[in-house]
């Protein structure tokens, strides 16, 4: 094993370790933030007991979930029942591999990109991996051997498939202008101007579909408590449940990171280091999620599907058309 | 203007297509207007074409329009092209002009028929076909028109096909015509073999430049075969039997097709081929003899018929006989002249009879008519004009043309032709006035029930009658002896043969001016004699016919039954053919052909019964076979590649 490869492995491992842990921490922080922000928006206090203003509440929750009894229904398909949360969580975490979160730096004479790996089909990788997450949900719904779970799982996957399409199409405008599928290239192309200015329609479509894609309010139909008893994770408890929970938040972070990368100029920003800018923008996006959740009522399932197929999809195609036309006219 | 000639054909075709395809959805008025408009436009353009032809100097009055090449096979070459010359221009005027009047008449006559659009579609199609026949510049295209008019005739005779007699009559007309058409087709083939062309111009040029001696056996054969076709279409002995039966069709159809236009196709064709006919004296003799015989024969049958339309039908056959007589003696102009005048007055007579039938709510038997002249005055007056015209009283149209034919028959032929023709003219005058007297004069024998509804026909029926009556009066002056504008007009077509360009009237001049005048006087006297006799028998002494019938029972019965020709034909041709066909059907068709076909099928069934067990219905089974096949192919490919 030569030295180059060795160094590469070391650096990659370190990067993976850091990113993984940051995401975990962010998930935990998100849980607290969400509860607090929503509480304040609804003019209540939220968790206050554990730690300062309930800061340690997520830890307490985590411990509680860890130590609860792990129940597997008797008629469930056991292997899949166990595998399903993993199948949901792993893709959610894998997507971070291609998201650039800061400027390249030089340490000990080694050039280190602030991205785990820059592959030239980055966005396709993200779409591919995130499409795998559907399996976890479908499997969870099916293996529980519970009709509510099954319906929730099918609904959820139908919704995700539908909106995945719009997500992909809404990003094409940016890809066309950049001329590359690599996330790093896309970020670098925005050093002067954010794509948000150039692709406002694309961003709006992306934002809506992303919310639907991660099953967040107002598109949280798969887990609609009132009609489906919490959907695909009805039968889950303990650590498996927490994995679904983490996957949902991880997915939120992923789509926010994509939004930052594609529309908000990635880590570019004045004065502060790139990583800080990236985290700030990411936080803003995540705040948006919470804000929406506490503002909008839930849509009906058919409304959701109609909206996705009949409005967003044509709009995103229109966006591509307009982008292409402008590019042709400007001779780009 | 001459370039418009294709439009003449186009309008009726479009009209026919429109009525045929969409007529079901159109209103009756629109159907009528479309059909009449199509013919009207066609007539208008025909007039333009005619004027265009007149503007040319006489010797250049031949115009060909080549549309496209139709069949090309080796040396055989048939084009779709039209020829406008004096003869065809005259024909298109007659066809479209008379056709137009009859279309208008039909709008009234057929008004309550449920096949209204079908009728007009056929009628337009007929006009198209007839125009195609007379305008074509080669034999094959002419044959197409020839067959197409036969088809339309079939369709229109069998128009009321629910009636068995009508559909039988249609079939009869078709089959009998087929016999003639067979000869015509053979003639065309022989023409191609002989001249290596079927183009009129080329054939006639070759024929008139002395390559063939007079009496050439091939030419004789060709002309005889063509005459066979003409006899079929123009209802000459022995192929005339279909025409009386054709009266099963609507009366305007009888007027248009079976009196004025289609049946004259044979005459037209012989006139068109005059160059060939002049080369074959034998054929000419045959034509003249058959024409004369038919004229007399049909007239004699006409004496005893009681159906108003049948009398007219036999009269038509008889008049066609005159035309053939004229052609047979080489007086083509006289034949065409009579064709024209006959078109006028026979159309008039038929339409008049239609009006009578209309007034009597469908009654056709003259024994149930009588005394109608005050009830339907316009019909009576116009019918009278037509009758006088056909009887040959000067100065009506029929007189001049018939007189010219008789004169020519005398001058160019012999006394026998003349005397037959003269006797037939006497009979014509007699039976036509018999018809007139029985229908319009004397006591009314009309069913009292029908009598209450007696009414004159509507205007769109009477106006064509009046116009045709006018034409019947003045139509003859065009061919007035001495002046003879028609003669000069047609001379580019008929004047070309070197050996016999002596025209009858001019020939008559050699005999001194006295002969034509004498002839006129004689024929007028003959006609008046016929009328007088008819008056005596059917107005003065009405018991006389019955007495005569009892006195001469046998001749009466023979005439009444039309010489038993139909029965003889049945015995000689129809029944044996039927018997043979039955045998063929039972022995050859049912046993041999069906047997072999069924045998093949049975063999297939038998073997399939064995192989069908391979067909299990299981997809996986089939897939297995596919895999086996793939393996086999793969092995083969690999092995072959080594």
């Amino acid at each position, binding site marked *: 094993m030569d030295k180059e490869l060795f160094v590469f492995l070391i650096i990659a491992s370190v990067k993976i370790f850091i990113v993984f842990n940051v995401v975990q921490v962010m998930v935990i922080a998100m849980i607290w933030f969400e509860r607090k922000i929503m509480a304040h928006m609804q003019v209540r206090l939220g968790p206050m007991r554990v730690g300062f203003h309930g800061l340690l509440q997520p830890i307490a929750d985590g411990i509680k979930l860890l130590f609860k009894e792990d129940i597997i229904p008797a008629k469930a398909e056991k292997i899949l029942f166990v595998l399903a949360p993993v199948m949901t969580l792993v893709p959610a975490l894998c997507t971070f591999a291609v998201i650039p979160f800061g400027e390249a730096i030089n340490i000990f004479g080694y050039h280190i990109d602030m991205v785990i790996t820059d592959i030239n089909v980055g966005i396709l990788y993200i779409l591919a991996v995130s499409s795998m997450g559907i399996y976890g949900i479908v499997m969870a719904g099916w293996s529980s051997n519970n009709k509510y779970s099954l319906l929730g799982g099918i609904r959820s996957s139908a919704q995700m498939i539908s909106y995945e399409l719009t997500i992909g199409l809404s990003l094409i405008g940016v890809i066309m202008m950049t001329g590359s599928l690599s996330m790093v290239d896309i970020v670098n192309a925005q050093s002067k101007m954010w794509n948000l200015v150039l692709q406002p329609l694309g961003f709006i479509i992306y934002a809506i579909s992303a919310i639907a894609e991660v099953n967040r309010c107002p598109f949280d139909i798969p887990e609609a408590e009132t009609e489906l008893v919490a959907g695909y994770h009805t039968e889950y408890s303990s650590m498996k449940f927490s994995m679904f929970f983490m996957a949902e938040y991880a997915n939120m972070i992923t789509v926010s990171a994509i939004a930052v990368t594609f529309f908000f100029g990635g880590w570019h920003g004045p004065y502060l280091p790139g990583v800080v800018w990236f985290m700030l923008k990411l936080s803003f996006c995540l705040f948006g999620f919470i804000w929406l959740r506490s503002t909008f009522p839930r849509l009906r399932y058919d409304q959701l599907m109609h909206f996705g197929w009949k409005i967003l999809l044509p709009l995103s195609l229109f966006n591509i058309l307009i982008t292409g036309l402008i590019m042709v006219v400007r001779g780009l | 203007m001459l370039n418009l000639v294709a439009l003449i054909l186009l309008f009726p075709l479009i009209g026919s297509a429109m009525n045929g395809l969409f007529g079901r959805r159109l209103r009756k008025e629109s159907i009528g207007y479309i059909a009449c408009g199509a013919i009207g436009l066609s007539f208008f353009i025909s007039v333009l074409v005619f004027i265009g032809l007149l503007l040319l100097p006489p010797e250049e009055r031949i115009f060909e329009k080549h549309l496209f090449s139709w069949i090309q096979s080796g040396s055989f070459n048939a084009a779709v092209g039209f020829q406008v010359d004096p003869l065809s221009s005259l024909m298109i005027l007659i066809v479209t002009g008379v056709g137009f009047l009859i279309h208008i008449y039909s709008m009234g006559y057929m008004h309550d028929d449920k096949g209204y659009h079908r009728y007009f579609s056929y009628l337009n199609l007929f006009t198209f076909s007839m125009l195609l026949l007379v305008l074509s510049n080669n034999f094959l295209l002419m044959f197409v028109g020839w067959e197409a008019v036969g088809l339309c005739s079939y369709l229109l005779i069998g128009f009321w096909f629910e009636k068995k007699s009508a559909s039988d009559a249609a079939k009869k007309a078709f089959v009998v015509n087929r016999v003639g058409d067979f000869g015509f087709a053979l003639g065309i083939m022989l023409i191609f073999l002989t001249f290596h062309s079927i183009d009129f111009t080329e054939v006639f040029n070759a024929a008139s430049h002395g390559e063939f001696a007079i009496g050439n056996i091939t030419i004789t054969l060709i002309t005889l075969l063509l005459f066979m076709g003409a006899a079929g279409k123009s209802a000459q002995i022995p192929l005339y039997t279909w025409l009386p039966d054709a009266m099963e069709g609507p009366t305007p159809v009888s007027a248009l097709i079976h009196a004025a236009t289609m049946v004259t196709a044979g005459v037209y064709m012989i006139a068109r081929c005059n160059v060939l006919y002049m080369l074959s004296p034998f054929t000419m003799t045959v034509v003249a003899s058959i024409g004369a015989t038919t004229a007399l024969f049909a007239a004699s049958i006409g004496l005893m018929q009681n159906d108003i339309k049948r009398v007219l039908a036999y009269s038509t056959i008889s008049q066609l006989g005159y035309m053939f007589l004229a052609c047979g003696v080489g007086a083509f102009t006289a034949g065409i002249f009579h064709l024209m005048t006959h078109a006028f007055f026979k159309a008039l007579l038929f339409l008049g009879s239609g009006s009578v039938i209309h007034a009597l709510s469908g009654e056709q038997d003259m024994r149930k008519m009588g005394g109608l002249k005050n009830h339907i005055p316009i019909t009576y007056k116009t019918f009278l004009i037509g009758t006088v015209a056909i009887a040959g009283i000067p100065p009506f149209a029929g007189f001049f043309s018939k007189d010219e034919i008789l004169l020519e028959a005398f001058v160019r032929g012999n006394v026998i032709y003349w005397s037959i023709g003269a006797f037939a003219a006497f009979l014509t005058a007699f039976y036509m006035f018999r018809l007139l007297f029985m229908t319009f004069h004397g006591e009314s024998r009309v069913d009292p029930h029908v009598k209450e509804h007696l009414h004159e026909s509507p205007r769109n029926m009477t106006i064509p009658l009046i116009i045709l009556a006018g034409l019947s009066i003045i139509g003859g002056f065009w061919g007035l002896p001495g002046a003879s504008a028609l003669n000069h007009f047609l001379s580019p077509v008929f004047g070309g043969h070197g050996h016999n360009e002596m025209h009858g009237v001019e020939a008559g001049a050699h005999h001194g001016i006295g002969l034509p005048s004498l002839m006129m006087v004689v024929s007028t006297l003959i006609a008046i004699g016929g009328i007088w006799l008819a008056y005596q028998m059917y107005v003065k002494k009405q018991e006389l016919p019955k007495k005569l019938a009892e006195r001469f029972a046998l001749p009466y019965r023979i005439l009444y039954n039309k010489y038993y020709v139909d029965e003889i034909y049945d015995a000689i041709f129809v029944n044996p053919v039927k018997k043979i066909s039955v045998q063929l059907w039972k022995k050859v068709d049912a046993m041999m052909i069906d047997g072999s076909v069924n045998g093949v099928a049975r063999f297939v069934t038998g073997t399939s019964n064995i192989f*069908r*067990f391979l*067909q*299990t*219905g*299981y*997809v*996986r089974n089939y*897939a*297995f076979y596919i*895999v086996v096949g793939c393996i086999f192919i793969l092995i083969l490919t690999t092995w072959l590649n080594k």
Partner: protein
Amino acid sequence: MITLTHYLVLSAILFSIGVVGVLIRRNAIVIFMCIELMLNAVNLSFVAFAHYLHSMEGQMFVFFSMTVAAAEATVGLAIIIAIFRNKETVNVDDMNIMKW
């Protein structure tokens, strides 16, 4: 070193497995999956050829064959649903009325 032959053999193995699957399974949907597997085996050999022959044609073909596979899957599954609606089964052995 991995050569073209390695990939072709792998492709052949997968293809044969697909064939056997079509022949022995009775569930129409599983048969369908086996067909997809066969398609993928062929795609794999296409890409392998493209790589080892330095040509893009193979990859282009894969692109198109994937499109066809997608179209085929939609229509095929729709047909299976229609059949299920009529016969209450997706067992291909129950669909054997097309025989003597």
